[in-house]
């Protein structure tokens, strides 16, 4: 018997999903109590590797072919039912909205324990201990639907922690979190590590894991390209990191000016805007100004009102007070509906037609074929003109949503978390598109928690609610300036 020192073991593992090779010949051993970070560009196979450990592959994901063996805590994953694997492996996914089952947070923490038929007294003890260990007293006995995304993600983690699995598998748990929630997530991971648990985490945002990861596995095109110790990883140069397509290893502070003063003669002016949701004030007395070509970052904690502000700017929500003025003319809600375009975080929500061309036509029925082709060409989409939008890749869909807004003659574009879950290369591409659009005379608003992106893409920012307090490793300004591509 191997004993427990080899907690996770991949032996010659190759994976094909829908006849597409995702992983090739993976050999990896994770020791008991080790904290391993999986990194690499989007599509390199990080998520697939985590799914092999929690049993989603081969038990849950369809059309999948796996060669080789994966053992976890001496259990052969392919041979064990999911509920057996769940006793050893706790999983936290990317989307906090779809990871809870109960409306009451304390009952949610006990969800996994209910499933294994734990005694009620033990459950009560475990729930209380989880709340105290993870210092989440503010989350106890709350309605889950009233929680912010960050709180929901911490709750998902707490629910897994209560089951006390030996192994934690996390798939981009920080993708939708603000800096404060990421700081809390880091603290929880520290507690888990101190408790001697094994952690396997796939992430793009690397800075919050500094000092936690014992070993870093860099994947490229479905293969393990390189292993790093924590010290080796911290020592890699900026140019090397960029070549590897990785996000910053250090956390970044906002390095662009905050727009706090109304600029005279600005094209767009928002005066004393107040917005309510369910009769509760969310935005109070906000004023801002913007000029053609501005890219303005909108930052703030989860639940601070960034989405409310955007919905109100677009005219989707009524304003309780204040006005929006463009070139000395007050814009009604209807006018704002017409002039503001949004590129949503999940672009699938806004693609309605059966082809890329028709998507552009639906935005502007009078557009000529030539106009559509020119536009699609400028966003590298001409080859896909007859394809169904939902068959495009994530990046192509995002670009199509931009084309749609341009076709619709929008003057202002709002981007909601455009770099959520993106690697460095894709983040730089999004930055390029935004700059191109600004040069063409659009006014852009970008809602983001991603300061690395904010510093590169935006020329100023506005803060909604109280500022975030990052708890990650701070970057040196020289590192940052060197990494601007």
């Amino acid at each position: 018997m191997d004993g427990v020192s080899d907690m996770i073991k991949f032996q010659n593992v190759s994976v094909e999903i829908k006849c597409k090779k995702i992983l090739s010949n993976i050999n990896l051993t994770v020791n008991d109590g080790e904290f391993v970070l999986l990194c690499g560009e989007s599509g390199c196979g990080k998520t697939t590797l985590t799914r092999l450990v929690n049993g989603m592959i081969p038990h849950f994901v369809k059309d999948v072919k796996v060669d080789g063996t994966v053992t976890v805590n001496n259990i052969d994953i392919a041979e064990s039912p999911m509920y057996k694997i769940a006793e050893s492996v706790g999983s936290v996914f990317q989307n906090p909205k779809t990871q809870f089952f109960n409306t009451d947070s304390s009952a949610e923490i006990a969800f996994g324990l209910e499933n294994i038929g734990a005694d009620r007294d033990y459950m009560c003890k475990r729930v209380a201990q989880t709340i105290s260990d993870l210092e989440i007293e503010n989350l106890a006995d709350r309605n889950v639907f009233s929680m912010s995304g960050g709180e929901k993600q911490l709750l998902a983690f707490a629910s897994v922690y209560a089951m006390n699995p030996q192994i934690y598998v996390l798939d981009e748990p920080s993708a939708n979190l603000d800096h404060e929630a990421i700081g809390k997530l880091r603290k929880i991971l520290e507690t888990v590590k101190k408790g001697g648990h094994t952690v396997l985490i796939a992430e793009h945002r690397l800075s919050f894991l500094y000092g936690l990861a014992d070993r870093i596995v860099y994947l490229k095109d479905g293969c393990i390209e390189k292993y790093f110790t924590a010290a080796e990883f911290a020592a890699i140069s900026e140019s090397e990191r960029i070549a590897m397509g990785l996000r910053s290893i250090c956390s970044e502070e906002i390095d662009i000016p905050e727009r706090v003063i109304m600029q005279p003669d600005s094209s767009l002016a928002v005066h004393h805007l107040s917005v309510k949701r369910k009769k509760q004030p969310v935005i109070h007395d906000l004023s801002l100004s913007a000029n053609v070509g501005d890219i303005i970052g909108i930052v703030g904690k989860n639940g601070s009102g960034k989405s409310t502000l955007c919905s109100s700017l677009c005219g989707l929500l009524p304003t309780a007070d204040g006005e929006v003025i463009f070139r000395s003319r007050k814009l009604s809600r209807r006018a704002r509906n017409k002039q503001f375009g949004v590129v949503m975080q999940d672009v699938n929500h806004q693609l309605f037609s059966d082809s890329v061309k028709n998507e552009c036509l639906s935005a502007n029925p009078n557009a000529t074929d030539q106009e559509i082709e020119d536009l699609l060409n400028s966003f590298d989409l001409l080859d896909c003109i007859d394809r169904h939008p939902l068959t495009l890749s994530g990046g192509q869909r995002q670009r199509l949503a931009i084309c749609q807004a341009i076709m619709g003659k929008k003057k202002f574009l709002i981007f909601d978390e455009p770099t959520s879950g993106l690697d460095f290369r894709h983040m730089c591409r999004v930055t390029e598109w935004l700059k191109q659009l600004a040069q063409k005379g659009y006014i852009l608003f970008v809602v983001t928690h991603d300061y690395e992106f904010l510093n590169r893409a935006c020329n100023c920012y506005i803060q909604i609610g109280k500022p975030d307090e990052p708890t990650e490793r701070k970057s040196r300004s020289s590192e940052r300036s060197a990494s601007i591509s």
Partner: protein
Amino acid sequence: MTRRISALDPRAGIWLLLLANIGMFCEKYAWQNTALSVMFLLLLLLYRQYSAVWKGALLIVVFRLLLKFVFPLCPHIINMVFPVLINYTLRMMPCILAGILLVRNASMQKMIAVMRALHLPQGFITAISTTLRYFPAVKDEFGHIRAAAKLQNIPLSERLESTIVPIMMSAVNTSDEIAAAAVVRGIENPCKKTSYIRLRITAFDWLIMALATVYTAVTVWMGYRI
């Protein structure tokens, strides 16, 4: 000092829903239906569901007035369709109100605990609980799709047709994610499940059940006597 009434026990809620169904099937006259609806409106009032009370009451009054004063004056074509629809809605009103009373008082975890206490098959409980969890999740997504359709100036007449694909996609993705999160937390475990929520049926719940049973029985019985 006023004492706050604790939420209705889900088992009591299910009993009231059963009474509403029995009442609906046994009623012979409109006044019986109104009497049962009034009972559930009073119960909703007791459990502080004020919005449901006034909306339900308004609907009943408007529908009764329409049936009594407006439809008799309307052309035959209107009388062929609408009174039937309204009559059926009114007939179902006690059940609708009892359903609201149950849903507003019993959280999902309480309902699951009740189903486990009633020894219902695990497969059935899992299916019901994931379905109940699914609707609030997709509601949020549908809101985003509606907003996107509005910003693209898609006419109302075309909105249903154009939003159906993103709605289906979002529904499929959401159900996949919820199912994945449930499965990795051992929902398929065949062992006997336990409940964190402790159900306590209070003396007040018993009193409510008893009064409602007597009231329903008397209402039904009077219909047969007349």
